């Protein structure tokens, strides 16, 4: 890389330092494009498969498709399933309240009063009930995003600073004629 830049600097008006700096930023742009694309794919997955809505939003948008509804099971509203009856409870969140019915197993005792859960199913506007087909854990995606941002962003800045510093130091030292590497020429 260094030799190409030196050759280019000899043949064109571009300086060797300019050539190295250009390559350095190009490399970082490629890296940012790769990791930016992965972040976008992660965000798409979140919006398609993980994002939840609150009971208040459910009542205002009245969705026809399957949605993930997150809320807390109201105290005194929980009725255990019997042979003929499904689980029944009220789910509340952001000031809205929705009656939920769920036919199926209680996964690991998730269903209890004052527990915040996610129910996956359809809103039956005629009955005024949310029919859940599946129960899921609260996604807590804010924590996941924070963990990735607080670790990978400082890592990128740290690495960027070090690489840039090394590139500049080589140019400065070459100018001062202090260091001539023995290998890699």
């Amino acid at each position: 890389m260094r030799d190409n830049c030196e050759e280019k600097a000899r043949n064109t008006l571009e300086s060797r330092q300019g050539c190295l700096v250009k390559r350095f930023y190009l490399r970082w742009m490629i890296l940012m494009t790769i990791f930016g694309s992965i972040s976008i794919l992660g965000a798409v997955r979140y919006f398609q498969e993980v994002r939840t809505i609150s009971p208040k939003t459910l009542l205002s948008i009245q969705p026809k498709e399957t949605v993930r509804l997150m809320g807390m099971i109201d105290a005194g509203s929980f009725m255990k399933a019997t042979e003929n009856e499904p689980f029944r409870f009220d789910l509340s969140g952001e000031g809205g309240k929705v009656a939920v019915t769920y036919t199926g197993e209680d996964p690991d005792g998730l269903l209890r009063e004052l527990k915040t859960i996610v129910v996956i199913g359809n809103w039956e506007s005629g009955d005024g009930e949310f029919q859940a087909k599946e129960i899921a854990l609260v996604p807590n995606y804010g924590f996941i995003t924070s963990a990735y941002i607080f670790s990978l962003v400082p890592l990128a800045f740290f690495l960027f600073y070090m690489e840039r510093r090394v590139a500049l130091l080589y140019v400065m030292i070459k100018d001062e004629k202090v260091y001539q590497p023995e290998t890699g020429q």
Partner: protein
Amino acid sequence: MVATRFIGWLRKYEKWFGLTATVLISAGLYTGLVTSSPDYYQGEVVRIMYVHVPFAQTAMLAYSTLFLCSIWYLWKKEAVVDNACHAAAGLSLFFTAGGLITGSIWGKPTWNAWWVWDPRLTSFAIMFLTLVGYLMLRTFLDDKEKKATFSAILAIIGFVDLPIIHFSVEWWRSLHQPLSVSNRGVSIAPDMLVPFTLMSIGVGILFSYMLMVRTQMLYLEHLLEAKQGRLLNEGQL
């Protein structure tokens, strides 16, 4: 001449480490954030594992490198080896801080606490403080040889914390989960093992790359400082 040959070698091979780390981390992030399934007990939050565990493992790898490097320095007394030790300490501190921060963020939704005085967490915090002490010691001392020797001794003494960190989840009853990959087998679902392995190896290789870059940075800074000092003495600056 040993130093210039060593730096030349780092410069020649660093790009392969950087490239491998980029490929592995990209694949690890893609599988970890997009294709892998949520955990049965923890749900989506398990995805923090793909960044927390590699950071924590790499912090320990970096400290082990610092330990070996310090022994090497005390044996050979090469200035460039001291640059590598200094670089490993800075990187170890960075990854230790990353491991503690991501662990704290993971602790809140799973343990309902940002921090607990658990043996694993406490011994890890001790490693963080040892590294802060190491870097402070280097800042306070002016004599280059004393600085390198005393800090190498401190790093060797501080290494006693590493087995404690590793085995703390086995020796004491701990809130922190036990080892997922040990001689008893692998207790991670294959679906999660793929991003976990890719990220662990990828961040480990990234550390090697960063060590190569940082060692060059510290070596060149000292070289430039020496040159400029010489110019100052000669009245040229």
